């Protein structure tokens, strides 16, 4: 399994997304509102509590690339859509991996649109924990437009990381687009830096995407690998 922060195949233990989100939230980052559900009824009830539209994501240690298994259903606008999506997720999981143990679904509020950025932590063999920042989507996947710094970072380092990426102008006000909340990115990077220091067992952590607004941001997806125990096959 490849993370944007990872070198390649991660060998450690993969945290389930609810666990990963809980870790990130406990560290002090703003995380998308979510519930876990183990049946279509629970999912519909959770969606009702969160408010529509919602997204459903499969929760399984065997399925890290969720979309390969129809494991992500977005923009569900009512109870019927949630019920149908739940069944699609379960069918997809069974098709993808017959023996996959599925620990239910994650029901998340749909985040309103903003600029997608990626924040991450990785463990470098020479330098120890390092932080990553970049723009999400094709910017990280195709252009590899990311900046790294070693943990711990200063506020100055965090600001330099943000300015260093080629896509930086996309975070500034231009042609009617509003400027994005860079102070919040700095705070998130500093928080992740502290997390990297205090949790040396984190081998790789990807927050991708984090949706960045004119004010504030929200972590929509979190993947965490811990060093040590065997990971998913």
């Amino acid at each position, binding site marked *: 399994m490849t993370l944007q922060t990872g*070198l390649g195949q991660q060998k450690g233990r993969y945290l389930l997304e609810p666990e990963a989100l809980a870790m990130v939230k406990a560290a002090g980052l703003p995380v998308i509102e979510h519930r876990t559900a183990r049946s279509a009824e629970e999912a519909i009830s959770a969606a009702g509590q969160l408010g529509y539209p919602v997204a459903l994501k499969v929760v399984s240690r065997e399925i890290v690339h969720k979309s390969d298994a129809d494991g992500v259903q977005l923009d569900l606008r009512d109870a019927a859509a949630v019920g149908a999506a739940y069944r699609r997720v379960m069918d997809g999981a069974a098709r993808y991996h017959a023996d996959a143990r599925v620990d239910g679904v994650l029901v998340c509020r749909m985040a309103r649109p903003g600029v997608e950025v990626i924040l991450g932590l*990785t463990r*470098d*063999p*020479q*330098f*120890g924990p*390092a932080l*990553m920042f970049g723009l999400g989507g094709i910017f990280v996947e195709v252009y*590899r437009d*990311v*900046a*790294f*710094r*070693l943990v*711990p*970072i*200063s*506020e*100055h*380092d965090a600001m*330099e*990381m943000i300015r*260093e990426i080629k896509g930086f102008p996309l975070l500034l006000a231009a042609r009617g687009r509003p400027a994005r909340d860079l102070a919040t990115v700095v705070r998130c990077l500093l928080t992740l*830096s502290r997390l990297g220091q205090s949790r040396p067992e984190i081998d790789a952590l990807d927050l991708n995407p984090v949706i960045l607004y004119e004010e504030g941001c929200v972590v929509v997806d979190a993947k965490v690998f811990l060093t040590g125990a065997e990971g998913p096959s």
Partner: protein
Amino acid sequence: MLKGDGFFLADDGTMTAQSDNLAAIFTPRSVAVIGASSSPEKLGFQILKNIRDAGFKGPIYPVNPKATSILDLRCFPSIADVDGAPELAVIIVPAGAVPATLAACGAKGVKGAIVISGGFSESGAEGESLQRQALEVARANKIRMVGPNCQGVNNPYHGLCASWPLLTMQGAMAVVSQSGTVAAALMDWAAQEGIGVSALVSMGNRADVDEADLLEYFDGDAQTRAIALYIEGVKDGPRFLAAARRARKPIVVLKPGRTEKGRQAAESHTKSLAGRDEVYQGAFRQFGICRAETLHELYDFSKALAYLRRPSGRKVLFVTSSGGCGVLAADVAAGEGLDVAPLPEAVATHLRSFLPRHFVVNNPLDLTGDATAKLYKDVIAVAKDAFDIVTVIFGDPIVGASEVIDRHRPELVVFLGGAEVEREEGRRLHARGVPVFPTPERGMRALAQLVRFGRPEEKARP
């Protein structure tokens, strides 16, 4: 440039103690060449000859059981037989004999060793084990060791060319390299230009002495004003960063491995984990280390940082005899974030008062084919105070060009298209400690590093 305020490293205090005793390697009172040879094609001959020909002042002791004299120097059958106390041993014996040789050196009181021989960690498990043994023996005998598998050390300020080729030109940049050829090429270029180096170290397998030791050593070395470093990966990340953080002198690093193939080649060459280039890039930025992308850049940036001070700002004026080169320079400068500011009206008016009417008074300021040394001088005198730095481009055979440049002013010189005049004036400039760059692009890339990483202007002495 801030040196990464946020990074705290344990200040273990061991590094100072470690780099102190590198004196035996760089400034030994006497040197033994173990494995000296009388065959001119062998390294054991070339190195002995280079030490002698570079003008080493102390006793030189060739060691070879099969010779009584090499190059008119008395040869000893073993290090134990040497009738003196060599401080440095240069070792060129087969790998298998190196641990025992180091032990014999220890018994003789040798303090430093340069192990040229290959056949260690670069060549498989057996070599790796030999390297461990060699290191253990060196440590047990308190010998600091450069190498093994290296091209040696050259300190032109001490007449010590324990390396090849024979180069003796003294200068202000230290060259530290994991590759012998890279080190030699830099010193060779510097010698050809007449600027020289403060020292050269080919680190080889870095069993003991590594880049962190050498950053520390050269930061404290009186002749060194900038450090050029070629590495394929650091040996010890935290120690390297701690040394870089403490260094007050600019450090320029050339580190290949941007591509996956390059990273694999580096790991195979050095038998160490090269790590991810993106993380190196971040660490270099965080710790105020200047990164070069090519060998030429490693040379150019180190040269600029060793011989020029940091300008007080980014505002640059171009004075040129070549319109094209002015454009090339301004284009690269702007791309590098330098400020190609317009001439202030007062300065432009003043310039128009004495420049021929057909001149376009602008930045770049093109003096055209009419340019003379005097015209350069007059123009710079009028315009310099409105800018942080003046880039002076000589694009023709300008006789007296070297007289135009004031070493104490923030000026960067590019000279090209001047044939013999260029070579002569360039020699004069380099002899005065003024670096000359061969193309507008190379000059401007170097200037950009100077703005970011340069040593600040010295306070005027009262």
